Structure formats: C-alpha cells, structure tokens
C-alpha cells in the first residue's frame, strides 16, 4: 500500500509540474468545447439569429422590390444596404464590392420584375375567362421571366446560399400569388359584383412545427450544448494519451524504468498507479466539461447542459471512456520508441478515430460505408454512450453495451502492451 500510494504521489507530482501537459489535459479541451459550441450554436440556431449585411438594388420600384425589401428587413437575419459611400448602389458597384469580398451577398431586383408578373398573370387569367376558341397559336405567348440576380462571395457556404435563395423565393412566390390573386378577384368582380372584396391572406394554412421524441421522464431538447459537451469530452479524454505516452517514454528513456525494474515487484504497482492517476485526470476533465456546459456556456446565453436523471449511468460511461483512453495511451507508450512517434501517431490517430466516430460530423450525415466503419472507433462508443444519456434520456441499461466495449478495449490494449513488453524485453 505504501508503494502504491507513493507511486500515485510521484505521478501526481510529475503531472502537475508538467505545465504543457496540464494545458493539454485541462485548458485545451475547455477552450475547444467553448469555441466549438459557440460556433456550432450559431449554425444550429435558426438563421434569423445571425445577421448579415446584404447589398440591395431595387430597379423594380414596384410591388416585388418593395416586398422583398420589407421581407428581408423583417427577416432579422439580414440587414440591407442600398447605398455605398453616400451614393446609391448600381449594378457595377455591387459586383465590385462582392468580388472584393467587402460584402458577401448582393441582390438585384430588375426593373421589369413586377410588370412581368402582372402581365403574365393578366394574360393567364384572361385566357381562363375567355372563350376557348379564341385562343390562337400566336396569342399563346411565351413570357420571358424577369431575372432577380444574386451575387455571392465564394466564401459563403452552400447551405447559407441556399437559405438566402429559399427566403427570396418565398417572397417572390408570395408576391406572385398576391398579384395573381388581386387580378383574379378584379376579374371575378367584373362578372360577380360584390361589396365585400376578397382579401388576400398572406399567412399560410400549413405551418411546420419541430418536435423531438421524448420519453415521459425526459424533457431534453437537442441543442448544440447537449451535442457538443459529450463529443468534446470524449475527444479530450482520449487526448490524455499525449501526456501519458510522454510520461511512459520519458521513464523508459531516462532509465528510471531500470531502477523500478530492480525493485521487487514494482512494475505492476507503478503501472497501476499511472492508470489510476490518469483515470483521475480523465474524470476531472469530465467534471470540468460538465461545468462548462452547466455554468459557463449559459453565461454566454447558450442553453444549460441537462444531465438527465441517470447520474450513475453518466459516471459509468465516463469511467469506461477514461479506461479505454488510458489503455490506448499505455499501449502506445509501450510500443512507440520515441516521443515524436508517440505524439504524432497518437494525436493523428485520435483525430481520425474522432472523425470516424462522429465527433466532428454527426454519423447520420456520413456516407453509408463510413457509418459502418464508425462503429470500430472507441470514441464512437463513448459518444454514443453519452448521447444515449444526454439526448435520449437513457439509463444504465442503455449505456452498458457501450461501457462494455470500452472496458473491453482497455483490457485488450493493456494486454497487447504487456505482451509486447514481455516479448521485446526492452526498457
């Protein structure tokens, strides 16, 4: 017991004197989760909440131009700009400003836009009310559509471009329907005179409501916090392999390991002390990450992380994840011959396993083949374990398969490390 406690104490001293190690272990993951959550939060949120300056030129000066302008202004996520350096915008300036990247989006409503809509609507309605016989081939004119032009800076992401486009289309269809409707009612009132004119109701009869599957105990709503905290916690936990492999290799290189090997039965004690200390580190990381989610992110106006009712399940999956990260670190530290090898292979492998495991991008949007591959990543098991608690309100029974896989991985890696050590008898 003395030998174990002194080994633990030694590991703790070494750890707390390694400033870079501490930064990797505790500060980096917190910064990471902070930044990632904040970034993702703005894309997770409805677009209306981030605002963007858009150059706007209304050559139409009629219903469509006005409707689009009002619509954009009221959308909340777009501010429109009609002048530049005191002068009204023209097509040339818009193209230049967007090309230079000063503004990301330019919208031009062409002069004839409303007129085109109106002409077409009038024509169609007239056709509808006239005698079928009187339609001649020549009269069935083709209407040249008016072009609303959108300029985009290439840095604008596809998804954002698409939502701007959809928003615009919404206004255009809205105004098209309104104009058609107005002309239609005019026409009707010529045949059926009435005092109370039909009113155009712009609000739709169908709206969309988002709902999430909840069980009766669980009221959690997926948001960037519920998604990000577990993802980056798992990621950070696996990053302990960098200081851990460093620690193992340093012990071996300095020859301290020789001394340890000459002490009766100390290998196992020293190794278990290391495991314990790094498990502890993982657990502290885990608690810190939860704190970020519960205390710090809400200060920035983000939703509070909800732990759900199954705290014990949460602790079990955290420990299982920590175990598999520690096992992986011990295996790498044993097999790698130099610090550089361990650090580069270690971090790259974690990043790859993280990518495969759905830390960076959710699994469900990956291609089929990647979805199948993702289940080989221990980071995926950890993540799925946390998700079943944070997002699906799962309990111990739900996380056990994942915890089992993680612990199995830990046993496998430690066994491999042990065998390698024995086979190579190196120190």
């Amino acid at each position, binding site marked *: 017991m003395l*030998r174990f406690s002194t080994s633990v*104490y030694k590991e703790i001293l070494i750890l707390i004197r390694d400033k870079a190690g501490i930064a990797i272990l505790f500060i980096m993951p917190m910064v990471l989760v902070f930044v990632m959550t904040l970034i993702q939060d703005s894309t997770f949120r409805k677009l209306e909440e981030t605002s963007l300056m858009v150059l706007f030129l209304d050559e139409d000066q009629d219903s469509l131009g006005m409707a689009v302008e009002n619509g954009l202004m009221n959308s909340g996520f777009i501010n429109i700009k009609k002048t530049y350096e005191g002068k009204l915008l023209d097509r040339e300036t818009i193209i230049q400003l967007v090309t230079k990247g000063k503004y990301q989006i330019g919208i031009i409503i062409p002069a004839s836009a409303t007129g085109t809509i109106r002409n077409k609507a009038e024509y169609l309605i007239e056709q509808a009310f006239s005698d079928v016989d009187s339609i001649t081939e020549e009269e069935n004119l083709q209407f040249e559509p008016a072009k609303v032009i959108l300029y985009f800076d290439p840095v604008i992401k596809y998804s954002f471009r698409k939502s701007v486009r959809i928003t615009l289309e919404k206004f255009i269809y809205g105004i098209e329907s309104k104009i058609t409707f107005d002309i239609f009612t005019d026409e009707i009132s010529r045949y059926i005179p009435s005092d109370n004119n039909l009113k155009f109701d712009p609000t739709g009869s169908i709206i969309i409501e988002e709902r999430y599957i909840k069980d009766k105990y669980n009221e959690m709503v997926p948001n960037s916090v519920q998604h990000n905290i577990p993802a980056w916690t798992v990621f950070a936990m696996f990053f302990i392999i960098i200081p851990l492999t460093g620690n193992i290799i340093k012990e071996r290189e300095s020859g301290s390991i020789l001394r340890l090997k000459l002490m009766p039965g100390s290998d196992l004690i020293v190794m278990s002390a290391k495991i314990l200390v790094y498990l502890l580190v993982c657990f502290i990381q885990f608690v810190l990450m939860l704190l970020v989610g519960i205390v710090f992110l809400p200060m920035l106006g983000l939703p509070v992380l909800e732990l759900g009712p199954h705290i014990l399940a949460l602790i079990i999956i955290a420990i299982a994840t920590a175990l598999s990260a520690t096992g992986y670190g011990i295996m790498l530290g044993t097999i790698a011959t130099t610090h550089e090898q361990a650090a580069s292979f270690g971090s790259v492998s974690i990043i790859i396993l993280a990518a495969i495991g759905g830390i960076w991008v959710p699994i469900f949007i990956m291609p089929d083949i990647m979805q199948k591959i993702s289940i080989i990543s221990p980071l995926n098991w950890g993540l799925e374990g946390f998700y079943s608690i944070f997002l699906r309100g799962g309990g111990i029974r739900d996380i056990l398969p994942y915890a089992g896989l993680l612990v199995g991985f830990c046993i496998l890696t430690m066994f491999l490390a042990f065998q390698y050590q024995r086979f190579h008898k190196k120190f």
Partner: protein
Amino acid sequence: MEDNFAIRIENITKIYKGSAEPALRNISLAVPQNEIFGLLGPNGAGKTTTINILCGFLKFNSGEVYINNLSVEKDLNKIKRIVGLVPQDIALYNTLSAWENLRFIGNMYGLKGNKLKARINECLNMLGLEKSRNRQIKTYSGGMKRRINLIAGILHEPKILFLDEPTVGIDVQSRKVILDYLHELNKKGTTIIYTSHYLEEAENLCSSIAIIDNGEIITQGNPGEMIESEEEYTDLESIFIHLTGRSLRDN
C-alpha cells in the same frame, strides 16, 4: 558451488536482436564477496550489457549467471532485494526534487517514516547534497546528478552494488567524493562491481579488475600484480593499450 562469490558468470553469450556480432562472447567472471571489482573496457566493449545481464534486465543466449549463488533467471526476485544499481544514465525524475526522488525510491523499497528520513539525510550529507535537496533534478549540475544518481542506488543498503560508469564526465572534487564514498561502503561490507574507462581511477580503487574488449574478457586479476607481471607495463593504461590496441572502438 562455492559460497563466497558475490557474482559468478559462466560462459555468457549475448547477441542483440538484429545485430550480427555478439555483444558478449562466451565470457566468464567470478567476483568474491567484499571486493571492489572493476570491469574496464573501451566504448562498446560490452560493459553495460554485462551489468544489465547481471541485473536481470536482459535475456542472454547461453551461459549462466549467479548472484550470491542465486540464479538470475530463476531467483530474480530474491536477487532484487540484495542488489543495487547505479545506471550509466541519470535515472531520476527530472521534475522532482532530490528529496522527492529519494523518498519515492525509499518507499518503493519499503522504507518509510523517520528511518527513511534519517537515511536520506545521511546519504545527502555524505555526498554533499544536503543544501540542494529541495531543488528539482533538472537544475542540478552534471556532478550533482552523478552523486544523486549514486544515492538512489544505495539508499536501501544493498549487499552488492553495480555501478555503470559512475564517474563519467565530472570534476575532480565530485569524483573524489564518490570514490571515497565507495571505499566507505566497501569497508562496511558492500561488494562493488563497477565499470569505467578511467584506468587510473580503477587502479587506485579496485582490488581486482577484468578488461573487456569486443565482448571478450582479455585479462583479469589484481591490478598491482598485473602491472608487475611484465617488464613493459608501467600502469593499467599501458596494459590496456597493449591488449586492446590503438584503433577506435564503437565504429
């Protein structure tokens, strides 16, 4: 089986994996209890390899090794209790202080409390490190590191002490402190097996030596007697040059 040998090596051959040449070629050595034995040889001769085999760190291809009549292959755990090692490299935790390092090592040997404190203080005093005991090892000079490395090997008062080049790269003062201390230990009954390529040092310190070159023991005996054995030998160095030649090693 004679009882009074501290170490006995019989026909050891060691070939490292992946290397064509053996590092040790069928060497045999016997060191009686209470000797200061010097294993001397140029770089790459096989000194560290021999020490590592004696400590049970390395497997060997053939032969037998006994320490106090205990087989290194079978009784390693018993052997561990009676031997101490001062490795060629400074085998300490750089970011821990001398005190923290020594307390850890002492604890690992089962020493604790006031007894351990007294022992650490005694050693630090003997080697002139008492003032620097709370400094991290990385702030130590080369000579201080050698001295603390020595203490780490003898804290648990081993009966047999292996030292692999304990005086390499240090000044006269540190060297003298270390050698005096080794004499002291030997007087108290510790058998000392030490490697070096400082021949003068070995001539003064050792009661018997072996010269190893290219993995082979080329001569062994009492240094004084060896010098007297041939007309042209004036000191160990002349014997050494005579026997090992002038070409560079370790190429």
